[in-house]
């Protein structure tokens, strides 16, 4: 009896303290709190925290609170759940695939609406980034972490296989030949794998001046069909499947899971986002080389496409909070902040000024692997095909592609049949989504 009374006292005590704690924020009302949900895992997380800490130190009246909320797709799902529940965060990092979903959501405040004229020079934003995210010449979300895909390769394995470490494959045919030599020499069980295989398929389209979906990739009007089941898409998947049959290519799973095989020397080459430059260079126990993505011969040249994410401002907050968010965005594009972000992660700095700053500091000459992505995207040709795909149900479409690719490289379906299955599902998704927004 006595025991239970003690417990009761304790519970009541806890409740009261809970209430008190719950009420205290009134004291610190002067500080504007900004919640910032992001998906930056591993080495990217401390880089985000570094930016936020720098900003908070400079702004005693604003407190940005970064919260790692899982993978990109999970962050998007959580933000949607929060918005539907009536308590959205202030800032959400949404990957490029979610762009159309966010534009359609009715739950966001476009960045140009909270912007104060003249405080950010939009002309200074790196062109391919602006091209990807601008709608009708206006930015709806704040550029933050942009990347593109490049080829990483293990120079030590190249040497061991008797290959020239300064001559990575630049075409599909060379990939097959060099990859075949690597496998045959026995230095690694397989030659190449992809990070984000679904994104690599998009890269192939933009790189060869091919549309991924109709209506100019869904930019001139809502896309109604994907084009992956046409000659070009089938060709790419057939090539990849052929590589897989020869053991040259090994399917490495989604997102960053193939990095492990590359770092362990089980593959000699990796297609991966530039955002892995930082972590791969640090973790690799071999000499890392980087180069442009290999191309198919006989197709026109386009450009590699931007990936990564932007920051979206959510509806439902006060003007004071939007002012604070704007301060944070201004801080993000400061040349030194943007440059540091690039140094820590490998993501593109968002402005040309930051690129110049990095160049002047000698960063690029000391870290040649950080230049590759710039050169690839700046030597590409600006065409509508390479400006990035905008599809409402893009997340589901990517999943459909990934499943089809898995079926093809496993030999469960022929490349053509796999792409037909993918296109049928994707087109159904586009139709259903489009009807919602008619």
């Amino acid at each position, binding site marked *: 009896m006595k025991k239970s009374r003690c417990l009761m006292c304790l519970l009541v005590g806890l409740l009261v303290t809970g209430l008190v704690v719950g009420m205290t924020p009134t004291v610190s009302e002067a500080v504007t709190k900004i919640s910032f949900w992001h998906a930056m895992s591993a080495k990217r997380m401390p880089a985000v925290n570094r930016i936020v800490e720098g900003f908070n130190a400079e702004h005693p009246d604003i407190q940005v609170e970064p919260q790692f909320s899982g993978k990109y797709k999970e962050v998007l799902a959580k933000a949607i*759940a929060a918005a539907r529940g009536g308590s959205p965060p202030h800032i959400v990092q949404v990957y490029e695939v979610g762009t159309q*979903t966010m534009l359609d959501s009715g*739950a966001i405040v476009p960045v140009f609406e909270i912007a104060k004229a003249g405080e950010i020079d939009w002309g200074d934003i790196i062109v391919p980034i602006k091209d990807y995210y601008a709608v009708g010449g206006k930015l709806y979300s704040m550029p933050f972490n942009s990347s593109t895909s490049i080829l990483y390769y293990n120079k030590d394995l190249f040497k061991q296989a008797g290959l020239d470490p300064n001559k990575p494959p630049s075409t599909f045919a060379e990939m097959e030949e060099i990859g075949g030599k690597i496998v045959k020499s026995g230095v690694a069980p397989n030659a190449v794998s992809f990070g984000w295989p679904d994104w690599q398929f998009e890269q192939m389209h933009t790189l060869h001046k091919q549309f991924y979906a109709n209506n100019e990739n869904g930019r001139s009007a809502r896309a109604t069909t994907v084009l992956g089941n046409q000659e070009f898409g089938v060709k790419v998947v057939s090539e990849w499947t052929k590589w897989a049959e020869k053991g040259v290519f090994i399917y*490495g799973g989604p997102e960053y899971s193939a990095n492990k*095989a590359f770092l362990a020397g089980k593959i000699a080459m990796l297609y991966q986002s530039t955002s892995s430059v930082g972590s791969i260079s640090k973790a690799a126990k071999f000499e890392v080389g980087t180069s442009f993505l290999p191309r198919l011969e006989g197709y026109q040249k386009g450009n590699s496409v931007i990936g990564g994410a932007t920051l979206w401002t959510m509806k439902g907050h006060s003007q004071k909070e939007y002012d604070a968010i704007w301060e944070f965005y201004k801080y993000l594009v400061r040349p030194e902040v943007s440059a540091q972000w690039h140094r820590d992660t490998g993501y593109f700095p968002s402005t040309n000024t930051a690129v110049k700053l990095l160049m002047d500091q000698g960063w690029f000459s000391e870290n040649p692997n950080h230049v590759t992505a710039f050169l690839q995207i700046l030597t590409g040709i600006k065409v509508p095909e390479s400006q990035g795909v905008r599809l409402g149900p893009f997340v589901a479409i990517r999943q459909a592609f990934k499943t089809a690719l898995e*079926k093809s490289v*496993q030999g469960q379906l022929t490349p053509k049949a796999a792409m037909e299955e993918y296109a049928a599902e994707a087109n159904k998704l586009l139709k259903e989504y489009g009807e*919602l927004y008619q």
Partner: protein
Amino acid sequence: MQSKFPSRLLPYLLLSPSIVIVIVFLIIPSLQSLYLSFFRVSPFGDRLIYVAIDNFTNLLTPDYLNSFIVTVVFTGAVVVVGLVVCLALALAANQKVAGIGLYRTGLIWPYALSPAVAGTIWALVFDPSTGAFSYFISLASGAMPNWRTNGPFAVVVITLAATWKMVGYNVIFFLAGLQTIPRELIEAAEIDGAGPLKRFWNITFPLLSPMTLFLLIMNTLYGFFQVFGLIDVMTEGGPARATEVLVYKLYYDGFISLKTGYASAQSIVLFAFVAGLTLLQFRFAKRWVFYQ
């Protein structure tokens, strides 16, 4: 002996917190799911199109059928392998040997891990390029099993992981069941000349049947509903939907592909299915379960 409440209202008052919780967190969301299952819903839920039973007829696709088959095969494997192995382990852990406490603790251990942690461990051990298991397999056979590209192998790995995760739970209950069996019965049989196998089949196993039925239901529900964490961490339903069980498909369609209406329809079907399964088990189980 019978005791009475002083007031007729009091029992309802005492029950009310539970009733409120059930209504708010179970009944209302279920009704909402039922409602949404007749609509196509935009990702942010701001637009609805009434589609009648389209979401349900859309379930008659090869993908959903595939998920259904995967779930049945997977759950069957988890239940059969899990119960057989765990009963054997429990019998072993019921012996009087030195250090038995240590063995028992070791057996129960995995249950304390969260599915995410367990998934990460298995993903590391079976990683196609860097995992210890893959390494030994490739040493032994020369071939590299890769669950990122080999569907059936992925199912095997997930089954192993899921079964391993339930070992602690099953062993505890089997052990408890074994310890309630009166020693006299077994000793009497022994004196009558029954061998260990006969003793097991004719005494231990029937007396254990209530526990076995309980575990059968719990493991079936586990296979159906609670393997989400493992699959999400390890395979994400892949490769090529080989490990896409119904629950994972529901999650993916609802929260990643953002098709709320379609996912709601799936949840209704899943609910009906599991409710039916549980009823069936209870009804038929009465015929062969021996309650003391």
